[in-house]
């Protein structure tokens, strides 16, 4: 696949992510969603033209102006991605390289920022927050849907009752003991918390320094797959995949890029359906 065609395909992946966002963001104004939907279609049909990326950037920035603090983080990533795309559209290898490098640096920044935020949180570093998510279904929902962990459902149902009692308490000093869905929940939570830190560090490094290496592509694909299995963050997953596909344009091996595109399309579809 030529560099140009690979870039067009990867740019379309960004269009897919935007379409998923527009379709699934029910809290957004309808006008904004329509604007983003039109931009997404333009990106899908005319990936080489600037119009789609520019319209997407404008729509995302307008939404920021209206409700900055209520927007999900992937909104900001998408705005940066489309802004970067609009700045780097053009023919030829130089423009393709610039787009790939822009996407790679953006991915590295997302991972580095997420890592730093977690390092600043004591409850995250203790693993307590992930333990709570495991106990209440905040982590593992897709696994349960796939039928891989049926034994967790009862603990989640019991804990939902306890959480409701906790929420209705008449004093902030009240506490409640939650049931662990499996043996070693807290150890698993802490292990996962540490692993996520390592994974974000690794992805930041590899996309900053070697974004076209197949290891970068496969690393991101594994990270996104893990994210999709643990948590229904499908728009964010689709966005990461799209950025990864653009960053990997020009990679000798097409397999990692194709895997990212397949994951991106799958997560976008799940974002709309779920």
């Amino acid at each position: 696949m030529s560099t140009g065609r690979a870039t067009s395909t990867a740019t379309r992946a960004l269009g897919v992510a935007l379409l998923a966002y527009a379709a699934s963001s029910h809290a957004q104004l309808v006008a904004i969603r329509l604007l983003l939907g039109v931009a997404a279609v333009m990106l899908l049909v005319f990936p080489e033209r600037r119009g789609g990326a520019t319209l997407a950037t404008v729509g995302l920035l307008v939404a920021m102006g209206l409700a900055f603090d209520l927007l999900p983080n992937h909104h900001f990533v998408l705005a940066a991605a489309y802004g970067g795309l609009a700045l780097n559209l053009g023919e030829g290898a130089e423009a393709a390289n610039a787009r790939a490098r822009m996407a790679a640096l953006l991915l590295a920044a997302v991972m580095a920022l997420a890592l730093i935020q977690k390092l600043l949180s004591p409850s995250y570093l203790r693993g307590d927050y992930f333990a709570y998510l495991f106990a209440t279904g905040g982590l593992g929902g897709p696994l349960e849907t796939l039928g891989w962990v049926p034994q967790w459902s009862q603990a989640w149902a019991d804990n939902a009752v306890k959480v409701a009692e906790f929420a209705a308490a008449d004093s902030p000093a009240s506490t409640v003991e939650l049931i662990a869905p499996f043996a070693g929940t807290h150890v698993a939570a802490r292990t996962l918390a540490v692993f996520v830190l390592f994974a974000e560090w690794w992805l930041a490094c590899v996309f900053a320094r070697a974004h076209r290496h197949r290891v970068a592509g496969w690393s991101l694909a594994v990270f996104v797959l893990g994210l999709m299995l643990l948590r229904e963050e499908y728009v964010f997953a689709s966005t990461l995949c799209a950025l990864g596909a653009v960053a990997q344009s020009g990679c000798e091996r097409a397999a990692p890029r194709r895997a990212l595109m397949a994951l991106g399309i799958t997560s976008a579809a799940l974002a709309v359906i779920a």
Partner: protein
Amino acid sequence: MTERWRVWGPAVVLAAVAVVQRARVDLQGLSAWKGGGMGMYSEFHWREREVWLHVPDDGRADEASFVGEAAMVSIEARAFECMLRASDDCLRDVAVEVQVDGVHGPFAVEVWSWDSSSAQGQLRLQRRRVRAAPIEGEPGE
């Protein structure tokens, strides 16, 4: 040659947004989940924050405790804002709404976040205070 700013710009802008967001988290009590700082999953979600009105039993704020009178007051939009941005200004706005509602000081408007801890294999769900704004005034009848 492509100008460097076109390649680096988006990442630099995102990082700048995150720096500002972090400052707002520390200074204005903004939830780490919001504001573009990539802080999702670093702490409990902002919807797991609550606005509490603490009215001490004997009307003296310096002996305030949670053993006595305390009631969760949901003053709709203002309280909702304070869950997202637990700033002193927001809490004072809630206090104004509460006083209009007939509750007179002294009392404290506080934002508490859900929190969890693990000890001896037990997972406990609890709360921690994020911010408090004590309000002076004459004790109610």
